[in-house]
């Protein structure tokens, strides 16, 4: 909730600041959508805002401003007991340390009245253990307390358990625990470590490469089958009639819904994944090739025939080049879908792969690896799309200019 409000504040804040700072330019008429260009400053600030919130709520050293962190250091509280030996008073000292550190044993010996706990964790304190049996804690910081009740103490609060012990919880602050969300530098450090040493006996590039390889294999197979099938459906009424029900039925089935069946049929190994990705790409490519070939302007076909072209020449020189822009769009969509599907398929079962990496890491609560994996998956998906757009501009420059 606080995170969302902070984000909203950053959004509105940077908007109004930039509107005040930037020179007044004539703005396009409201509704003139074609004139809208993404604001460069907004793009830059958007990324900075996400990093600032991430860093600010995880106590990152890279970000100057933080929300209050968990209490760290030394605290303590007074308590009073009552028992067979009469009333007595005592004091406990608590050292709250970072989860990844051990308390320094030399500074204060942990013993009868000194306890240590990592931040965000509660600890049980039994100061009456060595007293005469029957001695009970009755006050904390001078206020009476009975079992089940909670009382505030400096830098935390205690709860008196029914068995007479005190459970101390230090102030958690507003920052996220690293096990929920590690700081950006922790993720970056983990990235360098895994990039150098690998994870689960496999290099990082091999994990990612395996995922990419599966995607490419599935996509190539899907395109090899789907594009000719799409052309056949565009050109022949029989093919269209025969395959239309299959394509129209399979198209809306999400590939992930096929995973259980694929596992039953092909097992969890490589062949199953490639079949799944093949199916994910196939229908997209069929439809792209079909609509690409169907979208040809009849006058182009007529012109080719009247210039003496044969049917094969019309296919080769008119229908196929005319459909290339749509096929490219199909490939782009299919790559995106396949990339999403491969990660999901690897989550189910795999020895290597980006999805497997984050799944195994999550089982060991290695959140930094999970976050790193998600970021890498996102970056690769984005890079693939940029690459495809670049290739599209190079290979089909006539797109949309017929």
């Amino acid at each position, binding site marked *: 909730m606080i995170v969302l409000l902070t984000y909203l504040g950053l959004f509105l804040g940077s908007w109004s600041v930039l509107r005040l700072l930037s020179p007044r330019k004539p703005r396009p008429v409201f509704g003139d959508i074609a004139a809208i260009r993404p604001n460069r400053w907004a793009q830059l600030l958007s990324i900075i805002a996400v990093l600032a919130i991430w860093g600010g709520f995880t106590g990152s050293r890279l970000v100057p401003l933080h929300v209050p962190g968990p209490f760290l250091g030394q605290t303590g509280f007074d308590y009073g007991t009552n028992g067979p030996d009469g009333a007595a008073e005592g004091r406990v000292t608590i050292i709250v340390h970072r989860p990844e550190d051990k308390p320094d044993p030399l500074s204060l010996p942990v013993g009868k009245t000194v306890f240590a706990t990592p931040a965000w964790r509660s600890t049980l304190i039994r100061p009456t253990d060595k007293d005469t049996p029957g001695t009970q804690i009755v006050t904390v910081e001078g206020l009476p307390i009975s079992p089940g009740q909670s009382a505030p103490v400096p830098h935390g609060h205690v709860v008196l358990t029914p068995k007479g012990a005190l459970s101390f919880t230090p102030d958690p602050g507003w920052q996220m625990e690293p096990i929920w969300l590690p700081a950006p530098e922790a993720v970056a450090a983990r990235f360098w470590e895994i990039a150098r040493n690998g994870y689960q006996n496999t290099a990082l590039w091999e994990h990612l490469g395996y995922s990419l390889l599966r995607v490419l294999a599935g996509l190539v197979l899907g395109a090899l089958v789907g594009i000719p099938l799409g052309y056949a459906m565009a050109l022949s009424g029989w093919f269209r009639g025969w395959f239309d029900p299959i394509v129209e039925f399979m198209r809306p089935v999400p590939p992930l819904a096929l995973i259980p069946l694929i596992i039953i049929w092909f097992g969890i190994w490589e062949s199953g994944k490639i079949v799944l990705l093949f199916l994910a790409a196939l229908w997209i490519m069929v439809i792209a090739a079909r609509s690409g070939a169907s979208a040809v302007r009849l006058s182009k076909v007529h*012109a080719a025939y009247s210039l003496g072209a044969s049917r094969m020449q019309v296919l080769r020189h008119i229908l196929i*080049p005319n459909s290339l822009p749509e096929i490219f769009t199909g490939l782009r969509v299919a790559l995106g879908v396949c990339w999403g599907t491969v990660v999901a398929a690897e989550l189910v079962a795999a020895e290597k792969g980006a999805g497997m990496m984050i799944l195994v890491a999550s089982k060991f609560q290695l959140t930094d690896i999970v976050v790193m994996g998600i970021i890498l998956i996102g970056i690769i998906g984005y890079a693939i799309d940029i690459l495809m757009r670049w290739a599209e501009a190079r290979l089909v420059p*006539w797109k949309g200019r017929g």
Partner: protein
Amino acid sequence: MTLLSLHDLSMRFPTPEGRETLALCDISLSIGKGELVAIVGPSGCGKTTLLSILAGFQRQSSGQALLNGRPIAGPGRDRGIVFQQGALFEWMSVARNVDFGPRMGGAPRASREALVRRLLAQVGLQGYADKAVWQLSGGMQQRVALARCLAGDPDLILMDEPLGALDALTREKMQSLVLDLWQDTGKTIILITHSVDEALLLGERLIVMAPRPGRILQDLRLPFARMAAGGDLRAVKQSRAFQSRREEILSTIWGLEEEIMGRPEAAE
């Protein structure tokens, strides 16, 4: 010498309501070699259907269409077609568009290169051979289309609204180009147009068609094409003779449109 002759050509289409429309009704026509024929008429008069039958894209329901004495059976290289914009192959360069026909026919590279150079010069596009067609303006694209059509050396050139999408100035330039090409090559040209001005100016012979059923209403011989070819096109358009012809044709077509609008079935 007769190049094309039509005998009682008819074309019927089934309508969605299960009836039939007569798009062309008993068209008889004979066109000699080297004629420039303009066909004009209100929409629905079947002029595009007629062109499509001549090109071989559609088969007539009855009657005969003979080219060089042989019935037309499908598209062929003896007839070149210039469409309204958008029929160029935008994935090919200007040169590849122009030599498409000879290339498909297996002509050697050297002869194709010479042909492309000659034709591009003829349509005023020297130096544009390696440009992509989508980089050209609409008028230039239609010049490419003319060159592509000429590359096949057809006996008959069919033009379906070739200048319809151009702006008025470009259109006048292209009209004089069509006239020049007609004079230089001596080709037979059938040109369909919506514009009465264009039909009067370009049509050495002007055929006015009427709708419901599609039929030939008038078949006129006009002097304007020969006057304008190589001469001043604008002066011809301003001449008194041209203006009075124009009024005559326009009022005929106007009358036809009124007649259609007045009929009850037109409102369906």
